[in-house]
Each structure stands twice: as structure tokens, then as C-alpha cells.
């Protein structure tokens, strides 16, 4: 049966990634409302994120030079790198010592759903785009399921993990939106 055009798929993927990042931003704000001041000082640095080893462009010039298939495999690598840690966030959200615990828990649930759906879309997309898009860098998460025993370390580790996801989801969103506009050359009003 007929196929959904790549430009449509990229539009839908960008919509999901946009939502994914917006969710991670509102979650960060929810958490910040009750974050121990000491946390800001002792929270691990972004370079400690489990995905920081992945080389990604970090300005416009570099990003626009990356090929379609490389952009898509960056996106897939980042998204896949978050499959396990999102489960850790989800299970630890249930017992997070935070007044907005249930709101946070629901949003993490939503984050997982959008992330799974986006993952499904990227499988279909990479099948249709250049074969290079199939390559996925492995970025294992060694953090384990336990995010700490006491209240402060739980909040700090949860916040740290989320801050890593927030940055990576922004990268995913940005790369997909570049791909979307490249695919939309015939529909100039789209970009």
C-alpha cells in the first residue's frame, strides 16, 4: 500500500521531538520549585552525562554541513541512549521526595510515550532514508536503577539525569527540524 512521504514523516517526528523537549523543560521547572540550594553546587557537570561522548555539531555552520543520514543516526543514537534511563526516571519518580511528585510522575510517563512513538517513527524513517541512517552509536547508561538513598541525593541525581535528557532532547529536536526543512524544499511555506 502507498507510503507516507518522508517530508510528512519528518514533520510528525519534529512535532513529537518538540513536545518531548517542551515536556523536559516544564519538568525541569517543576523540579526547580523545590530543589535544595546545595544541589546546584554539587550536581554533576553536563560532561558527566552518559551521552556526552557522542560528538555532535555545536553551531549552525557545523550542523548544516552534516549529511541527512548522519543527522538521523545522531538522533537515533541519542534517543536509544535514553531508553533505559527513562525507565530509571520513571520508577524513581514514584518515590521522589518532592511536593509535585505525582505531576512529575505523569509527565515522565508522557515523556516515555512520546519517546517510544518517536522511536517507532525513526525506524520507519531510516528505512526510507539513506542506509547510513541505520548506524546507531551505542551510549550505554551505567547509572543503575538506584538514584540514591537520602532525600537530597535522590533529588540531585533525578535532576541531573533530567538535565542531561533536556539537552539531548533539544539536540534531537534541532536535528529533526533541520531534516524537516531539507525535505520540505518543495514546500517553501513550511520553513
Amino acid at each position, binding site marked *: *500500500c*502507498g*507510503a*507516507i512521504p518522508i517530508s*510528512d*514523516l519528518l514533520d*510528525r517526528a519534529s*512535532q513529537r521531538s*518538540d*513536545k518531548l523537549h*517542551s515536556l523536559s523543560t516544564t519538568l525541569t521547572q517543576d523540579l526547580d520549585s523545590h530543589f535544595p540550594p546545595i544541589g546546584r553546587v554539587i550536581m554533576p557537570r553536563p560532561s558527566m552525562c552518559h551521552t556526552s561522548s557522542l560528538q555532535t555539531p555545536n553551531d549552525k555552520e557545523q550542523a548544516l554541513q552534516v549529511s541527512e543520514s548522519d543527522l538521523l543516526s545522531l538522533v537515533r543514537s541519542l534517543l536509544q541512549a535514553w531508553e533505559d534511563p527513562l525507565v530509571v526516571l520513571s520508577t524513581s519518580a514514584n518515590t521522589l521526595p518532592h511536593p509535585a511528585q505525582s505531576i512529575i510522575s505523569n509527565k515522565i510517563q508522557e515523556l516515555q510515550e512520546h519517546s517510544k*512513538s518517536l522511536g*517507532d*517513527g525513526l*525506524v*520507519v*524513517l531510516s*528505512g526510507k532514508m539513506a542506509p547510513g541512517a541505520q548506524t546507531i552509536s551505542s551510549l550505554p547508561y551505567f547509572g543503575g536503577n538506584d538514584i540514591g538513598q537520602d532525600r537530597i541525593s535522590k533529588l540531585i541525581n533525578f535532576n541531573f539525569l533530567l538535565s542531561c535528557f533536556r539537552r539531548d532532547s533539544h539536540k534531537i529536536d534541532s536535528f529533526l527540524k533541520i531534516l524537516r526543512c531539507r525535505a520540505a524544499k518543495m514546500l517553501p511555506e513550511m520553513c
Partner: protein
Amino acid sequence: VLFPPAKPGLTSCRSPEKETFTCWWKPGSDGGLPTTHALYYRKESSETVYECPDYHTAGENSCFFNKNDTSIWVNYNITVVATNALGRAFSDPVEIDVVYIVKPNPPEKVTVTVMEDKGWPFLRVSWEPPHKADTRSGWITLIYELRVKLEEEIDWEMHLAGQQKMFNIFSLRSGGKYLVEVRCKPDHGFWSEWSSTSYIKVPDYFHREK
């Protein structure tokens, strides 16, 4: 005289929010014999044929696809088969893309107030998108349409409101009792049902001739 069943017809498939969808069919004549219907579908670039996951949730002659069965990433090729003791009949296959069969829920919080412009009353109608539609993110565009009529009249007056969430109705009848309803549609999709009716009475105002 007994026959094999006539060909059923897939009448429509609709999704309220791109997360689930439902298809309906219209049976053909049953040839005088007990006839059963089954819906089968295949996903784009896959030869696997699946049967309808849920014939009940959406009522008779329907198939409901829940969140896990629904994908916005592939086209669905759908066929309905009627079977009785003497044979089978296949509907024409229908191809659907969930994103393009959205029929949203109606607009909500429809509010109508009487306002005045240099002595002339007018109706100010405002509403909200259906709560499931995330229009704030800028990705989903809904357009709206209103219909207005005097209680005693039969024909509605239609107004296209574009993407606005408010609309002014001028040239009112002094003392008239008006009914107002609103509906919405995504740019690639189907009109929702009309919202529930809002009633408003326009006060008697003195016809000032200009």
C-alpha cells in the same frame, strides 16, 4: 433463494486525536443467510495481515484501534469481508493515514455575550479548542465555523472564523432570541460535530435611523 453475501462497504475511518481511530462499514445484503463480518488490515511495507483488534468498543459494524494498535508512521490498508454459508465477499480496500482522518471533538466553553457598538448591539462569541488538541505549540492548526439563527427560524447563518477563537455577529434583530453553535476542523481533516447550543437574548433597542 439463498446467495453468498453482497460486497460490504467501508464507510469511514475517523480519529479524534491521532492516538486511536475507528472504522465503520455498511454490510451488503446477507443473501438470506446468517452473515458475519470481519475487518483485516495490513500496514505499509509489511505483508502481515492482522484482524481487527476490537469489534465492540465503537459499537456495531465497527473496529476500534487503541493506542498500541495506532501508528502515525505507516499507512493502513483495510478490507472488510462478509461471510455466509454460500461464500464470501470483500469490500474495496481503503488506505488510510491516521494523521489525515482526524475529526476532532467540538470546541469547548462556548460563551456568547451581548455587546454594543455606538448604540448598535452585537454578539461576541468566544470558545476554546477541544482540550485534547494542543494548539499552543503551533503545530496543530484548527479552523472554526459558527452557525447562528433566530429561535423561530429554520435556516442557520454560517460564518467561517478561520483560526480565531472569537467572533462578532452584527446586524441583530431587536429583542431576538439567538442560538449559536461552533465546530472545528484540522487543516487536513474533518469537521467536528457542532458544539452544544448557546442561547442568548438580544435586548429591545430603539431603531435609530441613520
